[in-house]
């Protein structure tokens, strides 16, 4: 916990922003106003923020279908994202992508992705671009592939790991093990008895493992990982054990979850609560500091929803635009 007060506030604000963004979407989706498939990141905030707090815009990330948290942590605009999810033509992607396809290349966010496992090879490409550019004053720019415990079984993810090792690309495979791929348990689908990190290690790179509901564990682990990768040590993998508070997608009845499971993880494994308890116990921040941020974030989200609701809708003419730069 060698973080400055400001860094702590930033980290909490970032996590809380994701949380409220998602909790609010959970409510709004029930009104039927939001179209499409939405996968909420609630419960996993410490991973996105603990990873991205180390990154600059020159570092790149590639995300998943459950991408809101990664986008927000990497600096995508809250209003722009909300408008995108609402399908406005003022959305970050002009209403063409929606929840599963938010990207902001200028922020180093190369896209959420509806295809499970598609991100990892793209991250290797981004890492190869960094490799070609060579190290800057802070070492190598890195590329990060966020993947789930389900995605880690997709052939593309395996190929990407091998290619990264072969080319010694500065790529980091962040596996968010939330114990489920859709409705299937990780203990079933990952043949190695849920152990994703060791399997990654067997591809020939260093691998780490940490509690993904503990912001400080994530942050510290990533410091080590980044030291290794920025220093030219080649690719790395990290597995974070985390929790998914909501269903796979909005509307999921979750009959596959154990009785009381969600209550238990909300009570014991909530990264925001754990953060608050840790920093207040250590006297780094007080409850007032955090309460103030909570209020601020709620205001931000409220404003974003109002803006999204009021934002202009796309028109039929927009369909034809932006397929090609020129054709």
């Amino acid at each position, binding site marked *: 916990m060698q973080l400055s007060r400001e860094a702590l506030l930033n980290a909490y604000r970032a996590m809380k922003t994701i949380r409220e963004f998602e909790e609010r979407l959970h409510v709004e989706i029930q009104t039927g106003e939001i179209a499409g498939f939405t996968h909420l990141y609630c419960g996993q905030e410490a991973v996105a923020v603990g990873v991205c707090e180390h990154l600059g815009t020159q570092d790149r990330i590639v995300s998943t279908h459950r991408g809101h948290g990664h986008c927000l942590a990497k600096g995508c605009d809250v209003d722009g994202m909300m408008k995108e999810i609402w399908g406005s033509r003022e959305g970050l992607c002009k209403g063409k992508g*929606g929840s599963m396809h938010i990207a902001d290349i200028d922020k180093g966010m190369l896209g959420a992705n509806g295809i499970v496992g598609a991100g990892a090879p793209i991250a290797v490409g981004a890492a190869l671009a960094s490799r070609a550019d060579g190290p800057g004053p802070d070492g190598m720019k890195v590329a990060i592939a966020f993947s789930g415990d389900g995605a880690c079984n997709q052939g593309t993810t395996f190929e990407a790991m091998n290619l990264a090792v072969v080319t010694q690309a500065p790529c980091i495979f962040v596996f968010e093990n939330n114990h489920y791929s859709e409705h299937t348990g990780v203990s079933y689908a990952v043949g190695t008895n849920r152990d994703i990190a060791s399997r990654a290690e067997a591809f020939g790179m260093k691998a780490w493992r940490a509690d993904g509901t503990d912001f400080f564990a994530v942050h510290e682990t990533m410091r080590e990982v980044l030291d290794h990768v920025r220093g030219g040590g080649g690719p790395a993998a990290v597995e974070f054990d985390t929790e998914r508070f909501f269903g796979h997608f909005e509307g999921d009845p979750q009959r596959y979850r154990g009785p009381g499971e969600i209550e238990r993880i909300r009570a014991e494994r909530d990264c925001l609560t754990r953060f608050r308890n840790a920093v207040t116990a250590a006297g780094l921040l007080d409850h007032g500091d955090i309460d103030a941020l909570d209020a601020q974030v709620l205001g931000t989200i409220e404003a974003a929803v109002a803006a999204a609701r009021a934002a202009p809708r796309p028109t039929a003419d927009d369909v034809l635009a932006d397929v090609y730069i020129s054709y």
Partner: protein
Amino acid sequence: MTKMMYRDAVLSTIMEEMARDPDVVVLGEDVVGGMGTAGGPEAIGGIWSTSTGLYDRFGPGRVIDTPISESAIMGAAAGLALSGKRPVAELMFADFIGVSLDQLWNQIAKFRYMFGGKTRCPAVIRMAYGAGFNAAAQHSQSVHQILTGMPGLKVVMPSTPADVKGLLRTAIRDDDPVIFLEHKALYATSGEVPDDPDFMIPFGHARLSRAGGDVTLVSSGLLLGMCEAVADRLAAEGIGCDVIDLRTTSPLDEETILDSVEVTGRVVVVDEAPPRCGLAADLCALVAEMAFSSLKAPPQQVTPPHTPIPFARELESAYLPSVDKIEAAVRRVLAWR
């Protein structure tokens, strides 16, 4: 006859065929739906509810839940089929042929030919396709145009619960590989279904769902309903539409199409795939070549534009074929010259 939903026609046909033939096995992601969870294996039974109850009844040897590994699923289906089984594999979304095409295209479709006719590969690959849910560019696509172009595959696109029943049974009992395309927007539609446990609809036989004689509309799957709606609208004005439901795009019932066009001289093909090298073009080229002298107007295609599928509601509906767009095309061919 029993009234049931399209999705239940899928499930009950698989259930019946599994009960009848011990060689039928089912595999795919979440087809059981809760493996390795505290909620127990059959917590879901397939995200489309098209495999609910199969695991309970037939057990793990015949209902195989898989990791997210579509190439391995399709490959396993291939291996099962070469080993005497009749796999019915589910690809959750048709868009995922992107990560598994080799097994469909270069393996399953080609075994019989490459091996000199000495093998059979009775695999059924089911996939949910089509737009209408604002699921955007990677979860809304049609792929029949790609798969129809691949020799060795048969491609089925049922439009009603009864057709699901008759065509899926034919698919499962067929000794060739069959792609079975289920439109997401049809899953919750209902219709009467014959009770005969051997009810089958042969492949390569289109269905004339409306007989009119002035203009021919050709489509399949979800779009059939739109064509019928147009026919009904125009009937009120005394304009008669032949509405043809292809049922299978490979094999193709050229005869039914050509017979109709020879009478009407005017044809509109309606399809949900992008326009280039699509099924609409395929059929228009067929008609132009084979019914040239009968044609009174240029064959018309109603398809989405050459763009990916957009997310927002306004964009997706502008993108998709609609009753209005089809009607406009019909009026265009009728007004020609």
